[in-house]
């Protein structure tokens, strides 16, 4: 009995010590003002140095929380009980959140740095007047290949993936919209197709790819591509940038027939408590210098034209991540297709994962 008591006391003591240490470490940099700004963002998607800088400039204390999928974020905000001042959904999720009345309007006139955003990145179909969202980063869906196994330049279009050469050598990202999407594009259809017959055709075409597919995975793809586990991967530009930073044999191609153009955007949820701080932060992030620093840290493409000019040549002239206008014009932005069609995309994708082998 005594022993157990000692053990319990020891565990409690350790917990207490750790708890104290945590609270000491997490103490805000600026203590004077109690006002805080709660940001809900993807993991590792903002340069921490900029958080410190913002706190110093404005005196707000930033609480930074992260999510790992649009859907998880949506569910959390929808269920209430949160007070996020800023969230960063992708474009189709902006529409969905707006339809569910989860977003507050944003007045671009109150953002003095809004003018720096490039014309091709504002007033997009999912938010024609930028009433609810301000673009944060953008990117594409494309093909990553390893020049140890694939001759450079031999992959230019989606159809090249169907080649017999790549048997059991392709990794796909586990995302229904993207995989069904590129099958649709390869057939000449829109990535926002709602016609069930066309979706079925896309599935048939995808099933033909089955024997080339090694696995359908998520974040682990980065690790495998870096370790030369597969010749080809299909994923997003930002993921590709991460992989290429760790393996110089990897290259990224945006197929010429077209692909997805995606945006992650700042929004202000209805439940925000500190809108003034939210505006201040969005404006701070739109400042070209900060945006450039952030783009360099995160590795995704910035929609901020003035910031782009500040980026080193090796980044801004990289056609892989800042594609030229002729490729850009073939890119399609996802629309929110409503629950029924979204379900159809996912069901067909599940069918592909099961039968297409």
């Amino acid at each position, binding site marked *: 009995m005594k022993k157990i008591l000692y053990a319990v006391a020891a565990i409690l003591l350790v917990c207490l010590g750790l708890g104290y240490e945590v609270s000491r470490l997490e103490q805000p940099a600026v203590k004077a003002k109690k006002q805080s700004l709660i940001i809900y963002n993807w993991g590792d998607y903002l340069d921490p140095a900029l958080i410190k800088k913002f706190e110093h400039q404005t005196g707000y204390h930033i609480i930074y929380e992260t999510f790992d*999928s649009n*859907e*998880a974020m*949506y*569910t959390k905000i929808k269920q209430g009980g949160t007070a996020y001042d800023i969230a960063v959904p992708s474009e189709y999720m902006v529409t969905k959140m707006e339809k569910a009345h989860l977003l507050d309007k944003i007045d671009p006139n109150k953002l003095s740095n809004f003018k720096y955003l490039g014309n091709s990145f504002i007033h997009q179909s999912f938010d024609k007047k930028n009433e609810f969202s301000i673009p944060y980063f953008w990117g594409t869906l494309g093909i990553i290949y390893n020049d140890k196994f694939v001759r450079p330049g031999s992959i230019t279009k989606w159809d090249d993936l169907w080649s017999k050469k790549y048997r*059991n050598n392709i990794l796909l990202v*586990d995302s*229904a919209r993207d995989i069904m999407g590129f099958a649709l594009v390869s057939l000449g259809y829109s990535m926002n197709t709602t016609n069930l017959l066309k979706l079925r055709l896309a599935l048939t075409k995808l099933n033909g790819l089955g024997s080339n*597919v*090694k*696995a*359908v*995975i*998520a974040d*682990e793809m980065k690790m*495998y591509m870096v*370790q*030369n*586990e597969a010749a080809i991967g299909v994923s997003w530009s930002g993921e590709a940038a991460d992989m290429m930073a760790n393996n110089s044999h990897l290259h990224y191609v945006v197929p010429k027939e077209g692909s997805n153009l995606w945006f992650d955007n700042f929004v202000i949820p209805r439940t925000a408590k500190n809108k003034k701080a939210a505006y201040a932060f969005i404006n701070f992030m739109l400042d070209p210098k900060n945006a450039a620093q952030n783009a360099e840290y995160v590795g995704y493409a910035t929609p901020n034209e003035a910031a782009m000019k500040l980026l080193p040549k090796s980044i801004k002239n990289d056609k892989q991540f800042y594609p030229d206008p002729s490729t850009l014009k073939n890119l399609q932005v996802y629309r929110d297709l409503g*629950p029924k069609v*979204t*379900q159809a995309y*996912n*069901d067909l994708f*599940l*069918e592909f*994962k*099961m*039968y297409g*082998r």
Partner: protein
Amino acid sequence: MNSKKTKVLFMIPYLLWIILFVILPILLILWYSITDSSQHLTLVNFEEFFTNGTFLRMMLNSFWYAFLITLVTLIISYPAAYYLTRMKNQQLWLLLIILPTWINLLLKAYAFIGLLSNSGLVNQFLGLFGISPVNILFTDFAFMFVATYIEIPFMILPIYNAIKEINPVIIQASEDLGASKWQTFKYVLWPLSWPGVESGIQAIFIPSLSLFMLTRLIGGNRVITLGTAIEEYFMTTMNWNMGATIGVILIILMVAVMILTGSKIKRKKVEL
């Protein structure tokens, strides 16, 4: 001291726990499964499940893989458990068997990725004999192998305990009376150790039905079970009603397995 009042008092924490975390969630899942997205009562979800080839195929997959995993685990574990009871230093061996279960499942999965991948240890070893990298990761074999590895301790332990409880005199008696090794096993050892086998099967078959992380990490989503579907319906498309329906069907299947394996023990006893 031991009045009714104190008894009730002691029951309260447990009752609360059961109601809040077991009964209510199951009722919630049931409720979701028999409603549609606009809260109308309907059996549409179940109809969809049983008329859709994809779901039925997934159910078949789940069953088939769970069956194979359980069978292979049993074949490996039974002799292991038997010889364990005959060994010296049993506590040490037991500890070695239990030890892997202290390591987080995710870590073990990642360790296997490191072993089985093209540049992994297994392929490096094969490379010594001039065998070019064999594709092991993301195959049915890899999935079965890892799942079996993870489940083995949960099969060995109950069987070991069951065999340990058998009085050795009974085995000796069987041999003295002229039973062959096989007869001793069939008529004495196996029936008497059955309770252990049974709880081992339940501890493995039921969770294996909805194995989900391994299908993704080791199977590379080339092995699809009902767990994958549940994740999709709850997390990606947020069709909670259909997700709950699959959940309810899984629960029913699990109960069925419990009852089936449970009734066998009675029959065996009658036979004896």
